[in-house]
């Protein structure tokens, strides 16, 4: 980086944005509902995502009730069980996590962290939310149409996804695909905003290498999502045509209920390639923002600069690039040339390197740090543990010979819940406890937060840790009732009952969190502008919550990176990014 020596800089002109460029709400409707302010859109995205996420949570309860106490709940029949599985997976992965990380955290944090007044295309940004909401409504509508939602599994594999016998064959699958298409259109609008805002709207002095890692994570994840979602888009459109117009993109010649279908010659494997070309990057679309958020949480709450910032950035970029060449490791049992399996196993294991670098760097950041066990920090620590846990089982499943016997067992379910269920949710909670004071001006209640943390963290392990063992025993996934299978011991049933009780408790703990968010809105402790003593720009806004346009008259100027904590000789244990160096202050620059 070319640095201008400090004493050469006499007067720094503040970067100003002409007032006309900024969108101004004129009425209650445009201020709170059809609002183009990224902060309002972020809150809208978050609330919608969490609301539909609670539906998926209830679905997981119903599944656990059936698995833990088979035969007790007569209202859960095998079709419904499959529908619960499908909707739970789809909602959690796409409509909750993707929308919350990119639409929620992305919209709120990107403009504030890079020192912009708003996203660059506010109108398109608003449209993005409303299309997303429409997608969620279409998705939720499938619960009420004849035949109910689709039960094809969240991967929607043809041919079974659109054949009779699969629940929701009439309406469910059609609306599901329509909802996905809408979601992708909506996301593309938002994603363009996030990327271009990071590229074009950074404030003066905010070079790429001074951006907080949260922005790096969300930025890279958005680029990946923009390129990966078209694969799901193509697959959804083609499957929809197969279902509605009788084309045979994916549908082979087959006999259904004794009748030869009208389909012929299509390739189900083609769907799998398209689906996983989206599906694998999706794992990292959810993980990279979590990586970024965790890096920032750890640095702030351990009062220490992030260890190996450059490595962290390079690792994010490397993971983003590599994640596009590993998709077929989800298809080891679909039948493929052994050399392909070898290739994809190799690339899969290579991703472990940049990921491990990140884990080492988090641990080294904590090393001899001044660790404050605040709620965000607890969640960050839980994330590291859970992610390592899920990552290690990923090494098992990434190898063809180990994957083949474990495929379609509960081991896989345990693995992906650890790595892209629990771990990202830990980052989401950590992020919410950390940034809630900025969004609302009030702190979340700490005692309730700690209760929520311990129940969620220990409870999640009570659910998913034993699940690995069930998988090794050979308990299959997606089965409504395993019954008296010879190779499954009776103790597996007891374990299932235990896990179901844990799942119910964890679910109820989330109500404490929802209560905390609502209660603290008016009753929480006043937070002030910068309750955690953090350096990044969003904590330096003139108002809390940040007003319209984020910054007062002038945009902030950035003089340093985002991780100046516990700097020797500094007045406080943190130096905000926009605090001028001592030499400049003496010359009367804007503080």
């Amino acid at each position, binding site marked *: *980086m*070319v*640095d*201008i020596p*400090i004493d050469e*800089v006499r007067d*720094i002109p503040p970067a100003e944005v002409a007032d006309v460029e900024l969108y101004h709400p004129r009425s209650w409707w445009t201020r709170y509902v059809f609002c183009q302010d990224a902060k309002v859109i972020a809150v809208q995205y978050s609330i919608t995502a969490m609301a539909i996420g609670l539906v998926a949570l209830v679905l997981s309860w119903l599944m656990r009730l059936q698995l833990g106490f088979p035969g007790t709940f007569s209202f859960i029949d095998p079709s419904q069980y499959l529908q619960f599985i499908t909707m739970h997976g789809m909602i959690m992965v796409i409509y909750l996590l993707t929308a919350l990380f990119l639409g929620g955290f992305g919209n709120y944090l990107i403009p504030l962290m890079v020192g912009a007044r708003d996203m*660059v*295309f506010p109108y398109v940004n608003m449209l993005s939310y409303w299309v997303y909401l429409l997608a969620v409504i279409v998705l939720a509508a499938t619960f009420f149409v004849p035949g109910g939602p689709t039960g094809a599994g969240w991967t929607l594999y043809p041919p079974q996804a659109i054949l009779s016998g699969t629940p929701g064959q009439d309406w469910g699958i059609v609306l599901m695909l329509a909802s996905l298409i809408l979601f992708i259109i909506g996301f*593309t609008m938002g994603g*363009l905003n996030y*990327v*271009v805002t990071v*590229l*074009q*709207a*950074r404030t*003066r*002095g905010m*070079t*790429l*290498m*001074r951006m907080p890692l949260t922005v790096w994570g969300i930025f890279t994840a958005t*680029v990946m999502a*923009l*390129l990966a979602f*078209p*694969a799901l*888009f*193509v697959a959804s*459109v*083609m499957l929809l*045509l197969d279902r509605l*117009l*009788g*084309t*045979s*993109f994916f549908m082979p010649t087959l006999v259904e209920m004794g009748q030869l279908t009208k389909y*012929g*010659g*299509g*390739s189900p494997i*083609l769907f799998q*390639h*398209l689906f996983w*070309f989206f599906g694998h990057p999706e794992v990292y679309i959810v993980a990279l923002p979590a990586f970024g958020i965790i890096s920032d949480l750890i640095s702030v709450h351990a009062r220490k*600069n992030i260890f190996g*910032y*450059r490595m962290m*950035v390079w690792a994010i*970029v490397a993971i983003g*690039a590599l994640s*596009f*060449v590993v998709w077929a490791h989800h298809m080891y049992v679909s039948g493929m040339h052994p050399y392909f399996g070898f290739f994809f196993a190799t690339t899969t294991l290579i991703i472990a390197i940049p990921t491990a670098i990140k884990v080492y760097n988090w641990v080294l950041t904590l090393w001899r740090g001044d660790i404050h066990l605040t709620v965000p920090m607890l969640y960050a620590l839980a994330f590291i543990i859970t992610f390592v846990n899920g990552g290690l089982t990923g090494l098992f499943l990434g190898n063809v010979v180990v994957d083949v016997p474990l495929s379609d067992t509960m081991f896989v379910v345990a693995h992906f819940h650890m790595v892209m269920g629990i771990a990202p949710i830990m980052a989401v909670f950590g992020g919410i406890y950390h940034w809630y004071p900025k969004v609302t001006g009030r702190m979340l209640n700490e005692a309730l937060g700690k209760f929520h943390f311990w129940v969620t963290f220990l409870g999640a392990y009570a659910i998913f840790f034993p699940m690995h063992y069930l998988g090794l025993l050979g308990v299959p996934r997606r089965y409504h009732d395993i019954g008296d299978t010879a190779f499954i011991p009776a103790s597996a049933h007891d374990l299932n009952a235990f896990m179901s009780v844990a799942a119910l408790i964890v679910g109820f703990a989330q109500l404490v969190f929802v209560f905390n968010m609502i209660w603290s809105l008016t009753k929480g402790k006043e937070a002030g502008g910068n309750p955690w003593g953090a350096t990044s720009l969003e904590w330096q806004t003139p108002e809390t919550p940040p007003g319209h346009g984020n910054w007062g008259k002038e945009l902030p100027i*950035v*003089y*340093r990176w985002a*991780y100046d904590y516990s700097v020797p000789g500094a007045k406080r244990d943190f130096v905000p990014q926009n605090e001028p*160096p001592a030499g*400049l202050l003496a010359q009367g620059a804007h503080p």
Partner: protein
Amino acid sequence: MSAVVLYMAGLAAIAGWWLSQQRLASKPWLEEGLAADLREESLSSPPAAKVGLGVFLAVAGALFALLISAYSMRTNMADWRSLPVPRLLWVNTGVLVISSIALHWAYMAVRRNDLDNVIVGLVVGGASAVTFLIGQLLVWHQLDVSGYFLAKNPANAFFYLITATHGLHLIGGLVALGRTIAKVWRGVELIRLRLSVELCAIYWHFLLLVWLVLLGLLTGWTDDFVNICRQLLT
């Protein structure tokens, strides 16, 4: 999936080149003070809308690359019966080329502040794009009449899907072009139109390029090309 992997590799090369210009090897923890920002060094920093369009084109390109991948995976199967290429397709291609040239003409004119030629370029460009779309519908009609229904063979299904996707992108472009023409109508200063016209022209060139690639694919030219590449590699 080789087409889309190649496409992603191309994008990765562009992203890598861009990142290599961003001083990713700097040590931000040692650098205090007002760092020079690359965007300020280069005075010709593109406006946000242009960068936005560029990102969108990358996304749309990925969509088409995926369709091409799916197409080429599917062609190798036994039941594939290629479509005849209607002669009208060549006429349509010519019309789309004219459309692209007309918009480029408008772009050149807007840079010279030549209002008359801007109007001519935009209107001719829009009209020929609409003609192209009508022509595509006629092609569909011809195929339908001669019995090449959508669901009859995967080749037909892919033909309709790919032309429809391209056509929908062109319709989206026509919305933007219509707004630009409306601005000219309302008498907005040419200086402020420059960007809109330029973006329309870029988008049209992109869609023309995509169409030529798709045409090569649908008429089977690319098969020969791919075969040559394959022989070179093996």
